[in-house]
């Protein structure tokens, strides 16, 4: 419909038709209008996120069940086009981000429809199989039941090894729960099994969700709109703090399979098909598997490759947050203090005044705000510290 409305306008008018450019302005201290400086806002958000992740022990081998509420409340259209479509899209992004940050962990999907909880996919390490299964089953109807979901997940999570961290993430659209029994008992059972339950609500805050999260040590949040929901769900991708009783160091047996030789023919144990050349061989039982990381179907050994372990190192060896610094007037004449060490961007604001920048507490090099965000969220190396012997 938008295109039809725009046809009555001139070409130059069309480019402004959807553009609320007055919203991108704000007044500065002398009353002049300036465009909104987004970089300072992103940086402030990033600093808040950084403070939240203090230096505490985290669980790296996670077994997470995502419970998706497919009751009739999920067909509400306050999230465009409907809550369930938004949830499915964000779960897909979350699953990919989760496996990127936690390659040794596994996810399973559970749906709640007509008051009954069903296991959509079993615990597994491959993002594609979960996403494919989710996209196929998106019909909503009936009531939602937290107790049934928790009972199902509790039974499934009891089978995992003791070194794994058990988690549930419930994406709840409904405002009620229809339970067959006493949900407080179920919550107690989950607490005793050390399952960490978190909830993200899409409608309003509910007492029972808040109570569940408080008892089990999870987090409860309610999304205001789609971008807020995306932010909330991605907060669950990095590993959460480990529960104290769980955090005993134990030795875990893992296998590092070799790539199968070129032209070698065998039947793979995951698809039961003949494969030529591709795949890996389990070091203990010599069974063929197609992709890593996975659990060997024959002998149950965890199979990983060393880059998968290397992806988790930044959780174990995090870099210190940078301190905010404003270069003094003397520093500005020193070329090394007036450009960002990482990207060589000038740190001077307009008019040769000192702009906002940060400095590494160890190597004392200065960086711009955007490099600060990139270094702490993606790169996990300080270029200044790495450039010193």
């Amino acid at each position, binding site marked *: 419909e938008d295109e039809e409305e725009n046809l009555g306008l001139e070409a130059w008018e069309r480019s402004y038709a959807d553009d609320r450019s007055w919203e991108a302005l704000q007044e500065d201290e002398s009353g002049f209008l300036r465009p909104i400086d987004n970089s300072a806002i992103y940086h402030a958000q990033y600093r808040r996120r950084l403070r939240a992740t203090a230096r505490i022990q985290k669980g790296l081998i996670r077994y997470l069940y995502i419970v998706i509420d497919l009751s009739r409340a999920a067909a509400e259209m306050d999230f465009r086009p409907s809550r369930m479509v938004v949830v499915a899209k964000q779960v897909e992004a979350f699953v990919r981000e989760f496996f990127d940050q936690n390659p040794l962990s596994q996810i399973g999907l559970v749906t709640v429809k007509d008051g009954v909880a069903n296991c959509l996919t079993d615990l597994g390490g491959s993002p594609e199989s979960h996403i494919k299964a989710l996209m196929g089953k998106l019909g909503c109807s009936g009531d939602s039941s937290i107790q049934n979901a928790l009972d199902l997940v509790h039974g499934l999570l009891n089978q995992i090894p003791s070194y794994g961290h058990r988690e549930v993430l419930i994406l709840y659209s409904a405002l009620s729960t229809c339970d067959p029994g006493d949900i407080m008992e179920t919550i107690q059972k989950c607490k005793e099994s050390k399952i960490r339950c978190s909830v993200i609500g899409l409608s309003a805050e509910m007492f029972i969700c808040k109570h569940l999260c408080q008892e089990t040590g999870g987090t409860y949040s309610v999304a205001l709109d789609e971008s807020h929901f995306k932010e909330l769900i991605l907060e669950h991708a990095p590993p959460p703090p480990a529960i104290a009783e769980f955090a005993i160091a134990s030795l875990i047996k893992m296998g590092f399979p070799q790539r199968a030789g070129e032209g070698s023919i065998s039947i793979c144990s995951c698809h039961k098909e003949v494969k030529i050349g591709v795949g890996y061989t389990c070091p203990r039982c010599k069974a063929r598997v197609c992709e890593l990381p996975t659990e060997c179907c024959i002998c149950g050994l965890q199979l990983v490759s060393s880059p998968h372990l290397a992806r988790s190192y930044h959780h174990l060896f995090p870099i210190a947050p940078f301190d905010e610094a404003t270069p003094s007037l003397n520093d500005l004449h020193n070329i090394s203090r007036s450009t960002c060490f990482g990207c060589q961007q000038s740190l001077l604001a307009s008019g040769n005044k000192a702009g906002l920048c940060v400095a590494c507490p160890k190597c004392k090099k200065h960086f711009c705000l955007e*490099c600060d965000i990139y270094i702490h969220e993606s790169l996990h190396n300080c270029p200044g510290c790495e450039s010193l012997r």
Partner: protein
Amino acid sequence: MASAPSKLYSDDVSLVVVLLDTNPFFWSSSSLSFSQFLTHVLAFLNAILTLNQLNQVVVIATGYNSCDYVYDSSSTGNQSVGNGRMPSLCATLLQNLEEFMNKDEQLGKQEPEGRIACSLLSGSLSMALCYIQRVFRSGLLHPQPRILCLQGSPDGPEQYVAIMNAIFSAQRSM
């Protein structure tokens, strides 16, 4: 943090970040001399800049005690340095490289025992990735970036975690 799906130029425009290994302990025992190596590198850089007017080249030196930028084809201060016998690319790069290597030598004099010591590849790789992120931020139209490491020194085990982190970050930015 994935790069935004921004438009690239329609032609084959590239930004090449070259990481030059300047470890003196390696070059003193190599069969190829450092000056011969530099001749080939300068010819290569000239070729890239000639292929397309919009191509950019950045050179970062990977030293033994430090790393630093030695050449950026998009910075405007390059035109003045030309002594009539060499194009300004070569003159600027060689001058900056010489300054860098003098500073690098001053920073530490101890010689490694036994085998050849490694150079600081993780530092220059991290700087190259920060520069490329800045290019992604610069707007909708940007050249296709890539990193070329010219490395002769052996790997240092203490740099394993940093180099793996840089590799994963580069994978995510693709």
